[in-house]
Structure formats: structure tokens, C-alpha cells
């Protein structure tokens, strides 16, 4: 079953076509890769799925529902969230506050209950705090709970951004170059983390990255984008042996 479907999706910025009639599906429970040269339109696809950019043409459905041009917060509420290529944390807040802020999918106490600190607010807040601590534990960030996000080492900032995304309890997680700036050791750790997350949280993952060992290692399916067009789609083995892909992208790397 497909969790996400993009039909004939195009995005233009004035005269520039960043994404050109792309058809694409993500199967429920899968880890899918999105690769391509710089400027191919990968991040733009993330921005279209999450509602940050408006679609010029085409349709995106998630879980059978049309999400084309919905507001980002609505799409997040429906179960899609992401990390950013250039990390966007709540920089001046602590690690704990970053996660706690995003932990709210099952807290529905009202503003008045909050201002009067009524029992329902107290009870739900207690649960949220437990959830946040639990998540920090799983993500190995609990001992840095009170660090200011901006003061974390780079690799942990990326990890925190994933933790924050997971606090929404998403069905689909989009990771934009999670291994950027990481050494091979850290990249290997990240691969394990991503596989773990999928199992533990029962979600689907779409991942953009330039580290081929990572993408080929954990993705079941890969889409290759070039100049905004879909160049190829298939299993890692099919992609690695596809002459068009080797010419446009892999050849450059190797």
C-alpha cells in the first residue's frame, strides 16, 4: 500500500522549473532514498510534500487524503514531518525543551485550562514530560537534556532534530541530508539509528543524502532526480547499474 503519492507534480520559481512532472510513491513501512546532483530539486520536493512551498501543478496524497497546498502545520498534524538540510532547531532552548515543544499530539487541554492550571492540564503535562524524557532516552540525548541546543556538537544537533521530529509521532519522516558533515563512523551510527527508528516507531522514511554507502545500505527503493525530472527509480542494485544514473550522478561521485 502506498502511504504517499505524488502525481505529475511540478514546481516553478518564475522561469525556473525546479521540479518537473514528477510521479512518485512511498510504500508504507519502507525506507526510500531520494538522490541526485546538487540543485536537482530534492529539497524542493520535501518543501512541496510538507507544504512549505505551494505546488504549481499536480497532486500529492497522503494516506488516501489530498494534502496538496495544505498549510505545513496541518500536514504535520496529519503525520508528516521532516528535518532540514541546514538544521533548524529552537537554538536558544534546551534539548529537553526542543523535544517537549514538539511533543503535543495527544495533549488537548485548552488555553483556559492552561492559565488556571486545571487538573486536565496538569495530568497531560505530566504525560508530555514523560514522553519527552522517554524519547531523549531512546535517542541517547538524555544526559544532555539541559544543554542549549545551539551548544551541542553538530552531529548531536542533527540527532536532536530527528528526536524533535519523532516527538510528533509521525507516519512519514523526511530526512534532508542527515549525514551531511559526518565522518564515516558517525554515518554508520546514523544508519543504525535510522533502521532502529523505523522499527521502534513503526514509520516510513524518505531520505535525501549524498553518502552512497548510507543510501544504498538502508533504502529499499531509490528515486534519482536530475534537473527536476525523475531519471530513474528502483532498488539500490538497479540504480547502481543504471547507465543513465552513472552518467548523470554516480559517475561524478566515484
Amino acid at each position, binding site marked *: 500500500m502506498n502511504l504517499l503519492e505524488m502525481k505529475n507534480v511540478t514546481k516553478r520559481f518564475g522561469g525556473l522549473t525546479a521540479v518537473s512532472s514528477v510521479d512518485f510513491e512511498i510504500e508504507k513501512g519502507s525506507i526510500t532514498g531520494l538522490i541526485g546532483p546538487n540543485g536537482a530539486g530534492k529539497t524542493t520536493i520535501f518543501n512541496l510534500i510538507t507544504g*512549505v512551498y505551494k505546488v504549481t501543478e499536480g497532486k500529492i496524497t497522503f494516506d488516501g487524503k489530498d494534502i496538496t497546498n495544505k498549510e505545513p*502545520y496541518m500536514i504535520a498534524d496529519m503525520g508528516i514531518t521532516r528535518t532540514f538540510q541546514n538544521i533548524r532547531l529552537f537554538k536558544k532552548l534546551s534539548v529537553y525543551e526542543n523535544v517537549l515543544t514538539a511533543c503535543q499530539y495527544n495533549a488537548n487541554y485548552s488555553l483556559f485550562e492552561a492559565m488556571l*492550571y486545571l487538573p486536565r492540564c496538569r495530568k497531560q503535562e505530566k504525560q508530555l514530560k514523560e514522553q519527552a524524557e522517554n524519547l531523549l532516552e531512546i535517542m541517547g540525548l538524555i544526559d544532555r537534556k539541559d544543554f542549549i541546543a545551539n551548544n551541542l556538537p553538530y552531529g548531536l544537533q542533527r540527532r536532536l532534530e530527528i528526536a524533535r521530529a519523532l516527538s510528533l509521532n509521525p507516519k512519514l519522516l523526511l530526512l534532508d541530508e542527515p549525514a551531511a558533515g559526518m565522518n564515516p563512523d558517525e554515518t554508520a551510527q546514523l544508519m543504525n539509528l535510522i533502521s532502529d527508528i523505523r522499527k521502534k516507531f513503526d514509520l516510513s522514511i524518505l531520505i535525501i543524502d549524498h553518502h552512497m554507502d548510507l543510501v544504498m545500505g538502508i533504502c529499499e527503493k531509490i528515486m534519482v532526480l536530475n534537473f527536476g525530472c525523475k531519471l530513474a527509480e528502483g532498488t539500490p542494485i538497479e540504480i547502481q547499474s543504471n547507465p543513465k544514473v552513472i552518467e548523470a550522478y554516480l559517475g561524478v561521485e566515484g
Partner: protein
Amino acid sequence: MDAYIQGILILSGINLMAVLGLSLLTGFTGLFSFGHAGFMAIGGYTAAAMTVKYHMPFIPALLIGAIAASFVSAIIGALTLKLKGDYFCIATLGFGEATRLILDNVQYFGGARGWPGIPAYTNLTNVVIINIIAIVLLANLIRSKHGRNMIAVREEELASQIAGINVFKYKLISLMISAAYAGIAGGLMAHYMTFLQPKMFALTKSTELTIIVIFGGLGSISGSVLGALVLTSLPEILRAFSNWRLVIYGLAVIIIMITRPEGLMGGYEFTPQSMKKLFSNLKGKRLKSSEGRE
């Protein structure tokens, strides 16, 4: 208590009420407003109309003033908070000045000459009680998920959206609560001065409120309380120096902002826990320094 000191405390309390509201908007949600005097004016004139023209009791009149200010803020917010950039800030500036000019010409409220004969309902007791309630409600709000959402909006709008936060909605809520607080401050002022004049709500008043919030430290309720007490009483105490008092006031603000750019409290709060921590730190330091001497 000395009537003079009591007067200074009441004025500080009235300012504090407006500053608490602005603190939520500017310090915790990251939106600057230069029209909060306008919300005070709406709250003040509405509350006074209720007590003078409809003989309503004080507290319900204050609340109606707050609702009126909040309602007007909702209209401004709905029109400008979706726009990118500083439209909101500019709109509040225009709103504040427009409110004053309109009131100048409404003869029903005395126009520019002012409106005397408002009953003197405001006293130190009710100012203190209202401020305590306002602080407790605000502190509860900020500690809740709704408050965290506002802080998230201040920190990083795009990330907030992606975390499922309706940025527009939380900006609007913050503005409406903020304006309600300013409205109550206006009502308190009307019933303390027993006289209203549009001039009292000029741009300088809005600026003064913003200066207090920044001086106290963005994102700190304790800072706003401290800022309101210090910066309201300072010009009064300095009144003896007449011509020089505003210069000294300005210098004091500049010196604090240079030595502590994050404001007096800068994101920290006075809570029982933080006090304990501070004292144990101080104790630790004293122990260390006494060890050094031995």
C-alpha cells in the same frame, strides 16, 4: 502608607499590567508592538464609559474594557499577522496613533480636552491583587504547551510549523491576551487619574512599555516586573531634579542595555528553585573564597 509612595506604587502597578501583556507578545512570542497605548486607551475609555455612563461596578467594567481592546487587536492581527516582515509592527504603530486622533475628535468622551469625573475606584489593594492574578495566569500559560508554542514561534517559525504549530493562531492568541492586559491597565489608569485624555496614550507611552520589557529582559516575567517597578518609579523619584530627570532616566536605560544587552533578567525567572540554586551557588563561592584565604 505615605500617599506619595502609594501613588508611585499604583502607577507602577498600572504600568506593570500593560507590561505583562506586552511581555507575552514581545518577550515570549517575538512580536514588537508600538501601539499598546492604543489598547490601553480602548480599555480605559470603555471601562470608564461602563462606570460613568452605565454605573457598572468596577471589575466588570475593567473586564469589558479588556474584551474591547482584545477584540480590536484581533482585527489588526487577522489583517497583518499572516504577512511576512514587519507589517504587524508598522500596523500597530498606525493603530496607536489613529486611536489617539479619533479619540481627540469624539466629543462624547470629551475629545482632546479630556474627560473628567471618572470615579476613583483604583487603589493600591485592587492594583496589587489584579497584578498578582495577572502574573499567575501568565506564568501558568507560559509553562503550558500553549506557551511553549509561542516561544517556539519566537525562536524559529518554519520549524514551529513543521512541529505542527499553527503559527498564525498562536501569534493571534498572544496578541489578544496581550491587548486584554493592556486594556485592563487602561481601565485601572482611568479610575486612578479620574480623568482621561487622548494625549495620555501617545506613541511615547507605547515606546515606554516596550523599553520596560526590553530593559527587564525579553522572555522573563520577573524581568518585566522588575523593569516596571524600577522604570516607573525612577522618573518619579527623580522629579526633584526636574529638567535632568529624563536625561538620567535615559542614561540609566542605556547603561543597563550596554552592560546587560539581554536585559536585567534576560530569560531567567525568580522562582523558589532558582533562588535556592542562586543561594547554594553563592554559598559555594563564599566557601571557596574563605578556603583561599586560609
